């Protein structure tokens, strides 16, 4: 049974890759070019006024934030409309449901596809940033893994959410009340410690903040604000809870 699960998961991954091949050049812009533009404009532009932060240049300081939030946004982009679409418009999940592919395989295959997206995206970003002198530690090599963890921790709950809604208007709620606050208060552009406690709480529950802090610890070679295990545990909790939420959402939607 284990081997059929692997086979089915790979088959689902292949479907997403086949679909993605058509969109590659369109998405290359947002995956590879946009984060660099962000870095240049804010890192050098805003950085010129801000000067140093925590003893490093502003550019070096925001590199890990831009990296993790790019991964976060990719995860949300790929698990909102595409997931709802496969329930509602193309009915791709219903097509899979009629085959030996299980619900767990559908979700695992899609998350695997997100790994194929996030890892090259982060590696390319790292190489570009390296040329700008944005990295200060060899620990930078673990950042692709941290970004992958951010993707899993944010994609799974959003998949569960997308499986439960019938109208894409609900995504506006998700973007306005979850994604934007979590991005703004996740320590991407400024340290959350200088914020009021209420905003800090938003950061603490956001999977993105934990990812940003772990990436920052890695690229700057410093210790993160919480113990590493605590940040990792939060990401794991989001992933485990999200997996449960997504599995139930998919099962209910496909059972009818």
């Amino acid at each position: 049974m284990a081997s059929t699960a692997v086979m089915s998961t790979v088959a689902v991954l292949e479907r997403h890759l086949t679909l993605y091949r058509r969109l590659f050049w369109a998405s290359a812009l947002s995956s590879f070019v946009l984060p660099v533009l962000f870095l240049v404009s804010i890192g050098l532009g805003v950085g010129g006024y801000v000067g140093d932060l925590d003893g490093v240049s502003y550019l070096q300081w925001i590199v890990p934030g831009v990296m993790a939030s790019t991964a976060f946004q990719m995860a949300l982009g790929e698990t909102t409309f595409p997931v709802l679409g496969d329930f509602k418009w193309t009915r791709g999940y219903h097509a899979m449901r009629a085959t030996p592919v299980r619900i767990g395989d559908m979700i695992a295959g899609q998350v695997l596809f997100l790994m194929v997206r996030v890892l090259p995206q982060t590696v390319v970003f790292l190489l570009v940033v390296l040329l700008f002198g944005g990295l200060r530690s060899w620990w930078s090599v673990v950042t692709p893994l941290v970004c992958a963890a951010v993707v899993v921790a944010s994609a799974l709950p959003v998949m569960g959410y997308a499986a439960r809604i019938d109208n894409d208007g609900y995504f506006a709620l998700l973007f306005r009340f979850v994604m934007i606050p979590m991005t703004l208060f996740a320590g991407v552009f400024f340290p959350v410690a200088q914020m009021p406690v209420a905003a800090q709480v938003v950061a603490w529950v956001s999977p993105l903040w934990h990812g940003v802090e772990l990436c920052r610890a890695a690229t700057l070679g410093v210790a993160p604000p919480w113990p590493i295990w605590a940040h990792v545990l939060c990401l794991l909790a989001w992933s485990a809870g999200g997996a449960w939420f997504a599995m139930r959402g998919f099962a209910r939607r496909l059972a009818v």
Partner: protein
Amino acid sequence: MAEEPLIYARGLVKRFGEFTAVDGIDVAVERGEAFGFLGPNGAGKSSTMRMISCVSAPTAGELRILGMDPVRDGVAIRGRLGVCPQLDNLDADLSVFENLTTYARYFGLSRAEARRRAGELLEFVQLADRSAGKVEPLSGGMKRRLTIARAMVNDPEIMLLDEPTTGLDPQARHLLWERLYQLKQRGVTLVLTTHYMDEAEQLCDRLVVMDGGRIVAEGSPRELISRYSTPEVVELRFADGVDVAAKLDGVGERVDPLPDRLLVYARDGDAAVAEVHRRGLAPSSVLVRRSTLEDVFLHLTGRTLVE
């Protein structure tokens, strides 16, 4: 020793909250048969199909598919079924060919095998020339043929077709029927739902008539017609709204007044027409035809199939 039926249901029930979609049906489908569920919309056909395709769990009763339990062995059963759903769920952004290869991979076929199978099946459903094209510009009939090809990709023992020709034009329907007949000739067991009596007559060796979640009759199309109808039917239309039904008493075996016409069930249609004229009635149109499953359904339920 007789082989266990491929599909065996006893007292099968499906409820959605308070609503009972399938209300205790008994069905047995043998290998190589073409079996139909005939009934109007809302009769419980699609709910039954979803239980058979191991997508929706029965609320009560016994169901065995290929000798296995659809809840426990869903993965193993689905691997041997071909499902052509009522709503197309093709991947609009993939090519015609990719739709088949992608789906084949869900069944664990190797990439090479998937490509070989896809080529073969596109020939079979006469879409080989559209192989590299997108799905979106295909006509309704072509999309349905592609869905059928996709359902065949794992060489299934049972093909489940939920209203395979609903919404298609007559030419597309005939082409589809012809392909399905070919499949049946190859020994594939076909199970289909339809609310078209001509489709049921064309394709089914045996069928059940469903109404309100229950089975109201079972048999071959011929048997059902001879049991519940007469060999011929005369359709009479009268110009004015005069009630002539009473004057037709005794013509044929039974008279059924419909809003727009009268149906006279008779062993000999021409004799019945002669009797109508002998009584001095002047219908504006007369049609003598052989009895169909539509007449059976009308007799059993008092309603027409397609409303």
